[in-house]
């Protein structure tokens, strides 16, 4: 089910092996878990106080049309989360660049992603109009910053 992750992981560290627990269980009685799974309807901010302890947050995309996971990702990155942020489920190659901008750095799509199409997609846009998670830590500069310094 999970595609060959070599080209779908954009991190230097080793993949996290621990299984993810649901947000509800993490908050209830699994506070020692290091991996959490977030469903689209979960409130990502509830996780914010615990991000230091987490190595992996997996965000579920049951259908690619449900865009709530994009907000989840940005919220976690804005809260300072530095661990692996994985988009799992109905993730199509055309969504990966947007997800990267929202802070996702690994992907577990249900259907295979063509690595050549992915490479072209990720290389295609040199400039972006707005700040997103990729601007945190002084990364990508939005166009208005390039214009005015």
């Amino acid at each position, binding site marked *: 089910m999970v595609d060959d992750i070599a080209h779908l992981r954009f991190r230097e560290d080793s993949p996290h092996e621990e299984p993810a627990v649901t947000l509800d269980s993490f908050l209830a009685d699994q506070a020692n878990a290091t991996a959490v799974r977030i469903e689209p309807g979960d409130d990502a901010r509830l996780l914010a106080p615990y991000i230091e302890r987490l190595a992996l947050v997996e965000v579920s995309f049951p259908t690619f049309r*449900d865009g709530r996971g994009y907000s989840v990702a940005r919220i976690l990155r804005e809260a300072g989360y530095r661990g692996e942020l994985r988009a799992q489920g109905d993730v199509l190659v055309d969504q990966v660049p947007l997800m990267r901008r929202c802070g996702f750095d690994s992907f577990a799509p249900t259907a295979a992603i063509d690595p050549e199409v992915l490479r072209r997609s990720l290389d295609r846009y040199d400039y972006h109009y707005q700040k997103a998670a990729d601007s945190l830590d002084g990364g990508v500069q939005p166009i208005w910053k390039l214009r005015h310094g």
Partner: protein
Amino acid sequence: MYKYDEYDQAVVDARVDEFRDQVRRRLAGEITEDQFKPLRLMNGLYLQLHAYMLRVAVPYGTLDSRQMRMLAHIARTYDRGYGHFTTRQNIQYNWIKLEDAPDILAELATVEMHAIQTSGNCIRNISSDQFAGAAADEVADPRPWAELLRQWSTFHPEFSYLPRKFKIAVIAADEDRAAMRLHDIGIQLLRRDGVLGAKIFVGGGMGRTPMIAPEIKDFITADDLMSYLEACLRVYNRYGRRDNIYKARIKILIHELGADEYRRQVEEEFAQVKQLGIDPPAAELERISAMFASPPFDPAADDEVDRSDPDFAVWLDQNVRQHKQRGYAIVNISLKPVGGIPGDASAEQIDVMADLAERFSANELRVTHAQNIVLPHVRIADLKLIWDQLVEARLAEANLDLISDIIACPGLDYCSLANARSIPVAQKIAQRFADPARQRDLGELKLKISGCINACGHHHAGHIGILGVDRKGTENYQLLLGGSGAEDVSLGKITGPGFDEDGVVDAIERVTDTYIAVRQKGERFVDTYRRVGMEPFKEAIYG
């Protein structure tokens, strides 16, 4: 108007390349239609009744002659010789081939045009006042703010898969010429203690459940605008309903939460988002605003006009509006010839309008949400010359805001979502009221027709509105009275049982006859309706 720099051009060019690749993959079967559909919609490409339909963006309804000529070229080369101007200030082509779409986008990109986000569950074309930059009553030109938001919303990575479409309008006068209160977000520029800022309304919309947007933010300045809108959209993306397509717009969320609770959630989110530094510096709005400076007006421009030609005089009185600059005027070109198709223009007519803009209107045109075209900066001394050419091009119908200036969606003749045809109804109504003197006597009467509940014809906001429905397999038409998309915003009320095509035309005539019978001096139709109520009209229609 706005001119692309290297960054704007790079973004549009990359998009062309991306879509070309997506089309290639679709034609090769690498992606299914279900996967491809949101991708093509985000490039304005629908699959309609007869062919693919491409909706090209005209940002806040402003374009120049070069761009207008490209629109004519597209119509001629890739379509069947005409285009349709829409109620969101865009243009649609009805006979597009998927295999041509990438080339069309490539050609559009050469003149700083695109079809980005003109459909799909994302932020759509930001609309504005068609008289921006020319009207005396605006506090500032709203379009620089609209341009700022156009850039902010383009390929916004968090808001590309919203629960539903999202429409924003920006105005800068008390008179609302853009139906701002009926948008998901409506922005009204105003000054407070000399400071330029804006009021923000959120949660308007038409469709199945029309709603007027409540005020959510009393006053915000440009340096907080983007963060605030980011917060508004994030709350919507997180909490907007995704279980039911008819309850997925932000108006439903606000209705269910209540405006106060929505505002509270937005303020909470705003406090977080503001820290991210996503607002551009003032220099960016200044850079954009400089491109919207007035054209060089001639301070000695003559404000006298020879009215001796009676037809010219009629057109002058009906279609020409006052300009902020002495000696100048705003020309409205009606795309509603009696018996014609509302909003359609042939490639030849589009070229004529491009030429007129270049020669007489500082090279600028506007598309209005009433599906007409505006030449915003015309010398009064040139009006007769312009009118002569409009007459020759069959663009001189003198019916602005009159009953035959009908807003009509394409309806079942073109649209796969429609339940009934709208264009034949519009034609019959216009023909029934063809007599120009009769129309002028009726005065301002905004008639709007939608072929289905999606309300692209804005029927809820018509002084007279018509909704086409499918009643047991035959087309049927509901009549509504008393709506308005202007600053006196209101939603129309259904009169009673529906009619067939001829029946609804008869019913409208009874309505207008009633208006004539009971109106008081100075009252428009909608004013009389508001004074006397539905009863007299209902009585006249149904007996």
